[in-house]
């Protein structure tokens, strides 16, 4: 059973790391601010979700697990809001230029 749990953790964290990698590649390769934001926020939120999901069975307590989920939700919330603000600033700069 614990081997299965460890395997689940490995797979989930590795999948999360893959999304981070994809997001970083997108950040470096995509042509403008909007598509880069798209790559970053989508990939990082899903990547962090998979990392958190993979670590949950290893936490050894409901409270510690809940803290992990709260961290994920807070990152989700702030990155969603901040990417909106960055996109809006980019559009304003385009309109001004």
């Amino acid at each position, binding site marked *: 059973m614990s081997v299965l749990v460890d395997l689940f953790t490995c797979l989930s964290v590795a999948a999360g790391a893959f999304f981070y990698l994809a997001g970083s590649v997108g950040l470096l390769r995509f042509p403008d601010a909007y598509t880069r934001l798209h790559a970053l926020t989508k990939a990082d939120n899903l990547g962090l979700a998979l990392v958190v999901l993979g670590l949950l069975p290893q936490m050894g307590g409901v409270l510690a697990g809940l803290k992990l989920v709260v961290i994920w939700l807070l990152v989700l*919330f702030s990155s969603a809001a901040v990417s909106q603000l960055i996109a809006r600033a980019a559009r304003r700069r385009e309109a001004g230029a």
Partner: protein
Amino acid sequence: MTIVVNSGVVFLLLALALWTVVAREAFLAIVGFVAYGLLLALVWVSLSGIDVALTEAAIGGGLTGALLIGAAARLRATETEARAQACGRPTRVLALVVSAAVAVALALCVLVLPDPAPTLAHEVAADIDATGVGNPITAVLLAFRAVDTLLEALVLVIALIGVWSLTPDGFWGGRPGMRHRANPDGIFGYFARVLPPIGVIVGIYIFWTGADHPGGKFQGATILATMWMLVLMAGLADAPPIGRRWLRIGLVVGPLVFIAIGLAGVLVPGAFLAYPAGFAKPLIIAIEVALMPTLVLILGLLLAGAPERGARP
């Protein structure tokens, strides 16, 4: 495997440090500095220095980064001009040589340290029960080396006075910074309404848990000050005029309580900042609770800057 990860982190740290030094624009250098601070916090975590990591992330990367971005925004107009007056190649080469020499000297000093390095950790571990707190860092900061913490708080008050001294004469006693306006129904207004309740709870938790676990007043106060800044920047509230009586009292209450308890220590156990036996824990809590509003106000007002308008909203 660990050595691969560690070498990678060290390489990234050095690269970010180099980037911060050589970046042409102040803003780019600050971005590098903030990333450097966050990475350094991860290094402290892997060295089991959770308290240092929290402080580095909150103050080193976060708060200092915000202060520097504010400074860079003010300097942007004159940046090209300042770069034109930059010193010539010989001076810069000399600066490079001197900095490299200092770095090498420091590295050599670290390498010749006796192993194990001289430490007072055993004395702290032996006497920590007398303080009533469980986190050795808090015991050191508020019992064994309380005078350092007192001076730290005083330095912050003096730093704020330094910022306020830049106030134009006409605005003395006025409100710091610009009045921010954002659409209250926009995304930023929403963000600034939803996050502060959570942030306040996290800040107070970090402050309270500092007695027995990593955390403490500085980290907690930084989070609370950040939440305050968020509300100000979203235009949901205005910064208070710096002449307000409650504000001035809040700014000095922490150091005053600290000094009063220190002086009381001269009378009873017989030394400045000595706590009477059995009263250490309540006195430490009293000092920390009194320091909390002082730190939140100072950190927030440092970010808000010098007054730029009158006391009326």
